[in-house]
């Protein structure tokens, strides 16, 4: 430590450590949050030059106004059947989350992550992509699998790590992998999928394919080098890739200020890379669809990547291992000015006259029944911790394509231990 030189008339330096606007028990007032009117940032042509549309990184793309109407140039004009299909998938995901969360609390699995409040994002985005496009999700986008009709039973088998688990009990619950559904194996390490998605997109481009890649991370993990390496690669090679940042305000307990939100938007990260950047109301399924479609069409036209910030709120805990009451005000969720994505789409469908509360109530019952039936089906294959559902040898398989001698030796040890602990 050096002494301050005598007579130097310099202010003492101070360290800034961000502090969220609200803590437990605080009155929540979001009046400082700028929510522009729909179409405050109109939809440009997909071929627009990135430097001509920088305002989109600082605005907020909205379609649904507070009167539940779809308005403005971003309105995708989706037919009623598509609106209702999205609504149903979102309701199904929420019902699934509720039941799976309870399964974890009942001890049938070790861990679960809900998508509550973020259902519009993965579901509306997947509706805007082609079925053959490749998704590189983070852990809060199971909506992709719902939108692509992946069997719920398979998801629950994975969550229960049972003897029908397609991942053979190797992965933490919800870290699905479904290549046939264009769904890349989820990593628990954050943002690693960013450069991977770009590599996939580069391969697609180099082969003259017409499929594009889409990738997701949270606002917290934009701090990882992988995020920036991915954007650099994507920009350099003009990769057909849609970069998504789900800004749900929280990385476990750390608010978005720890990823830089005090200074600028997450969409603005794209400006430095010279790629188009859109900031979207993530609780507005139509805006999410429209922005994603814009980026996907652009990528498919060889115009390269787009960065989309999906501005939303993580309405529930980070995971079953987390208690948000310990660090944030419970009022945040109820006061969130952009509401709930399912409620907003439902009200829009009712306003259009294609839906009503009775049908909504009936649908809620149906999706709950569907989930229950899938759970019962999956539970026949076992739950975590009750008996041994995967033979020990599966731990040693797939480490290498062909098992080397040292793993064979170790698997023999495992077999001896198992015979000792659980004599058949």
């Amino acid at each position, binding site marked *: 430590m050096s002494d301050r030189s005598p007579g130097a008339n310099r202010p003492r330096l101070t360290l800034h450590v961000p502090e969220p606007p609200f803590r437990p028990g605080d009155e929540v007032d979001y009046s400082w949050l700028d929510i522009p009117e729909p179409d405050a940032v109109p939809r440009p042509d997909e071929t627009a030059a990135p430097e001509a549309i920088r305002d989109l990184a600082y605005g907020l793309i909205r379609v649904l106004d507070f009167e539940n109407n779809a308005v403005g140039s971003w309105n995708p004009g989706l037919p009623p059947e598509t609106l209702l299909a999205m609504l149903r998938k979102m309701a199904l995901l929420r019902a699934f989350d509720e039941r799976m969360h309870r399964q974890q609390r009942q001890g049938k699995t070790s861990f679960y992550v809900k998508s509550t409040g973020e259902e519009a994002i993965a579901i509306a985005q997947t509706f805007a992509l082609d079925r053959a496009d490749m998704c590189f999700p983070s852990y809060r986008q199971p909506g992709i699998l719902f939108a692509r009709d992946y069997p719920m039973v398979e998801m629950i088998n994975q969550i229960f790590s049972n003897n029908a688990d397609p*991942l053979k009990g190797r992965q933490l619950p919800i870290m699905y992998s479904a290549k046939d559904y264009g769904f890349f194996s989820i990593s628990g390490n954050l943002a690693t999928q960013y450069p991977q998605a770009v590599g996939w997109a580069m391969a697609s481009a180099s082969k003259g394919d017409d499929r594009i890649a889409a990738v997701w991370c949270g606002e917290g993990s934009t701090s990882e080098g992988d995020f920036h390496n991915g954007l*650099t690669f994507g920009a350099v090679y003009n990769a057909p890739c849609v970069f998504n940042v789900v800004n749900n305000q929280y990385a476990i307990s750390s608010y978005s200020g720890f990823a830089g939100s005090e200074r600028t938007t997450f969409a603005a990260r794209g400006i430095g890379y010279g790629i188009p950047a859109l900031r979207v109301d993530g609780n507005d399924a139509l805006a999410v669809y429209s922005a994603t479609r814009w980026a996907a069409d652009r990528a498919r036209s060889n115009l390269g990547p787009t960065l989309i910030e999906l501005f939303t709120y993580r309405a529930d805990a980070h995971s079953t291992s987390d208690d948000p009451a310990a660090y944030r005000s419970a009022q945040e969720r109820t006061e969130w000015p952009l509401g709930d994505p399912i409620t907003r789409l439902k009200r829009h469908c009712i306003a259009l006259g294609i839906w009503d509360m009775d049908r909504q109530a009936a649908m809620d019952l149906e999706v709950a029944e569907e989930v229950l039936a899938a759970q019962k089906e999956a539970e026949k294959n076992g739950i975590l911790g009750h008996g041994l559902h995967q033979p020990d040898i599966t731990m040693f398989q797939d480490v290498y394509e062909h098992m080397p*001698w040292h793993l064979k030796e170790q698997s023999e040890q495992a077999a001896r231990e198992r015979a000792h602990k659980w004599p058949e």
Partner: protein
Amino acid sequence: MARMSMIQAINSALDVTMGRDPDIVILGEDVGYFGGVFRVTAGLQEKYGKERCFDTPITECGIIGAAIGMAAYGLRPVPEIQFADYVYPGLDQIVSEAARLRHRSAGDFQCPLAIRIPFGGGIFGGQTHSQSPEALFTHVAGIKTVVPSNPRDAKGLLIAAIEDNDPVIFFEPKRCYNGPFDGYYDRPAKTWADHPDGEVEDGHYTVPLGKARLVTEGNDLTVLAYGTMVHVAQQVLIEHGLSADLIDLRTLIPLDIETIEASVKKTGRCAIIHEATRTSGFGAELSALVQERCFYHLEAPIERVTGFDTPYPHSLEWSYFPGPVRIGEALERLVKAEA
């Protein structure tokens, strides 16, 4: 057959495989038009096009991450990390992603990568162009680690690595790129022109992964080495008139334990030589395996000859390097030891 340096042999392996399989792509810093800082990829962009051999931004994380995504698409990428000392920013992508992808997805995805990495010292590269970090990789489940010592093996091993469906770390001993290095830095450099292993087949052939090579056969002792140290060990054995099984491991994981075990049981004495730092180096693993499997045949303590546990020093490079004096001392101790 042709005379090749190790650089030419590796270039030939890339050329031969790229010619046979359109899914093989090369990416890395300066590997494209320029052909790489060691010239290993020279001419490949011109021959196969910019989409199959191209320069990258300076981000090893991005290079490995993108290669993993390309592999998930169905390509067989061969990324180059310019120096082993630069691989660390890419370590998470190698360790947490490439190595585990097949296992964590239960075979849904696989990751056929051959990551080429020049390694080792002896070129006055200082602490950032000289390291031998192989033990970081042998410690990780799901990746293979290969180290050739000569042009013929380099070509055959690299083709095997590229055609393998597991991620392979392919360490190229850059001190031996242009000739076998016997440890005498102050003598005129030798080339591969008159070395028997500089004779390389032109077309496609493989040297299987997981198979060591008995370089010399003898009864006094067993020497385990790989990369540059094979040549240094061979020179020291000649100078000291020792009759040894000199085993060039070629692949560290999977290890050819059968060859090692048979030899040590025959000789009863074992020396392990590597250039990397000593503590927790791959020599520690080798020593443990030999002890576990050959203890009752051992007639002397196992000797490890390694680099020191310091950063690779620039001006004191030849004090750091496990050269003929350090190796000679250890081998004499080993053969003279009496129980």
